[in-house]
């Protein structure tokens, strides 16, 4: 596959605050790439640099190998689906979608044909003359997608396009977007703070935090092989423990030695150890590699979620087996369920569930929906 967009050492500051710190990223033709990160991580700014709405302070943005730092937005073969859609309130559905074609002075009959095609694609046939202000969020979303796709851009930028939709609609639109991307073969660059959305739709996922790219990889790689405590915690749930890598295949944490499959670390190197909550099995206390006491149980539908106190460290464990609160249990962990990471600036900040509550989690999620730079 060919590279379509390359970002080299992009640095961007606002009021002396560094929003993007040396971003290096290659984006390939025809892929669905997601930039994932919490509020304020620089993901939207990255997108705006590609779209031509911001100019990097230093570094290069290339399109098809050519530097486009100074090419204005209206001359780029890149279109955007904006957060909250930004439909033109003075134009109806047809004219919103036809907007780009009218600028290109496309003949009227072709405009009609292509707008119809777009309306069919986003399942809005018959909405031509509707006032965009009276459409539902999902319908406005579809108009925004049709409007951005009609001029057949090489790249479509999507800035948290599903943020304002309810959960059910969001799931439908995720499938639909993925579908549209595969049918049209247009490169989609999708920005979101929602890790589930990123895992569902993307070819590669780019995880960003604090203006830096933390990891680029397929959803499976990112989930199974996070590079540091931030990624492990941001994507899914993780128990992150302080450990020491004794030698390849042998790691010590939680007061005992475990067999693992990772290697390539220095002898006795301090490391972060990740154990996913679903990878831990309950066994009888005397048979367990570790023993602990269940401090809370939450029913989640498909499984139960336990917070288990093991030597003062609170683990999150998900299991379909039920164990009651305050019960003593043993835990068994397979070697390939233990993932070892080098220490990073994020070590010790994440992966401890001692102050965990669902309520807090929801609060912090709601926070990230807020608009950002």
């Amino acid at each position, binding site marked *: 596959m060919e590279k379509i967009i390359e970002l080299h050492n992009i640095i961007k500051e606002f009021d002396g605050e560094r929003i993007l710190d040396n971003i290096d990223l290659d984006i390939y033709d025809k892929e669905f790439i997601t930039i994932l990160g919490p509020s304020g991580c620089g993901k939207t700014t990255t997108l705006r640099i590609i779209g031509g709405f911001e100019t990097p302070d230093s570094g290069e943005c290339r399109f098809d190998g050519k530097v486009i730092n100074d090419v204005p937005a209206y001359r780029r073969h*890149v279109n*955007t689906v*904006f957060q909250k859609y*930004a439909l033109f309130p003075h134009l109806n559905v047809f004219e919103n979608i036809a907007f780009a074609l009218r*600028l290109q002075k496309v003949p009227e009959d072709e405009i009609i044909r292509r707008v119809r095609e777009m309306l069919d694609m986003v399942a809005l046939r018959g909405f031509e003359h509707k006032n965009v*202000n009276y459409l539902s*969020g999902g319908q406005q979303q579809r108009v925004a997608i049709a409007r951005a796709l009609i001029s057949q851009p090489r790249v479509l930028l999507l800035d948290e396009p599903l943020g304002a939709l309810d959960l059910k609609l969001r799931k439908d639109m995720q499938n639909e977007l993925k579908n549209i991307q595969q049918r049209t073969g247009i490169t989609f660059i999708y920005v979101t703070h929602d890790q589930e959305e990123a895992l569902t739709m993307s070819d590669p996922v780019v995880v960003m935090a604090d203006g830096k790219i933390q990891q680029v990889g397929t959803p499976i790689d990112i989930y199974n092989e996070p590079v540091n405590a931030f990624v492990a915690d941001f994507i899914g749930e993780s128990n992150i423990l302080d450990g020491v890598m004794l030698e390849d295949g042998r790691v010590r944490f939680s007061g005992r030695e475990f067999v693992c499959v990772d290697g390539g670390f220095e002898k006795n190197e301090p490391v972060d150890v990740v154990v996913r909550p679903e990878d831990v099995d309950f066994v009888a206390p005397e048979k367990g590699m570790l023993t602990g006491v269940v401090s809370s149980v939450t029913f989640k539908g498909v499984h139960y979620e336990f917070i288990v106190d093991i030597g003062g460290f609170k683990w999150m464990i998900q299991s379909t087996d039920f164990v009651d609160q305050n019960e003593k249990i043993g835990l068994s962990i397979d070697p390939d369920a233990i993932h070892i990471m080098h220490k990073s600036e994020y070590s010790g900040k994440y992966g401890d569930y001692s102050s965990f509550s669902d309520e807090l989690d929801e609060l912090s999620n709601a926070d990230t929906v807020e608009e950002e730079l």
Partner: protein
Amino acid sequence: MKKSAKGSFVAAPHLVWCVLFIIAPLLFVIYYSFTDSEGAFTLDNILALPEYGDIFLTSIEMSIIATFLCFLVGYPLAYFISRSSERQKKVYMILLMLPMWTNLLIRTYSMMAILDDGGFLNSILTALDLAPVHIVGTKGAVIFGMVYDFFPYMVLPIYTAITKIDHRLIEAAADLGCNSAQTMLRVILPLSRSGIVSGITMVFVPSISTFYISQKLGGGTFELIGDTIERQFQSYSTYNIGAAISLVMMILILISLAVMNRFSDEDAGSAGAARIAGTGK
């Protein structure tokens, strides 16, 4: 029950004000229009109106030109101010409103002192060995006076409308291929329509009814409809014809307001809907 009683109590002073100073005078205008100086009913006043047709036309023509010039200069200025930094905006706003703190009449007088044949401008021109210009007493001077006096009323509503436009719409336009001229024409101009309509109304209405501008800057060489009305009311015997002209003026203005409001209503409707759609998510 109690609440609505309270409501009407609070509204009472306003109601009294309306009746005394708005409705009663209007009724007087209508009464005088259809009576003679003895107080008997007559249509003579109305039938005499075609006599003033030319003056009506001149007034309409000049106020349309003045309004158009205000728009031509005011729109770019409003746009420019809306795009400047917050601090600059404050400075421009003060500069724009400062003249409004001086009475219109006084401003017109001082304009006369500047533009008169022996005035400030001509003494500079003569000192520079340039030919003096005759301005006061021409239609151009009156139009200039209208533009000068009512210009802020054009800029302010347009400025407000432009600042209300969501910046993302301008980015969306650029994203879809608009250069800055096309963005202006296809997005900013149509979305600031309500401001344009109020601006035009607020300049046109005082322009068409002005009398002191034409008296001072027109040098008494021609008459606008405002002057005619003023003259009729200077002697008791012509009150009735003055009232009839006023009535027709009011009707004309009401008609043009209604036409204007149709435009801005459509706009306000969709903007309101946008707000509802925005919060209803």
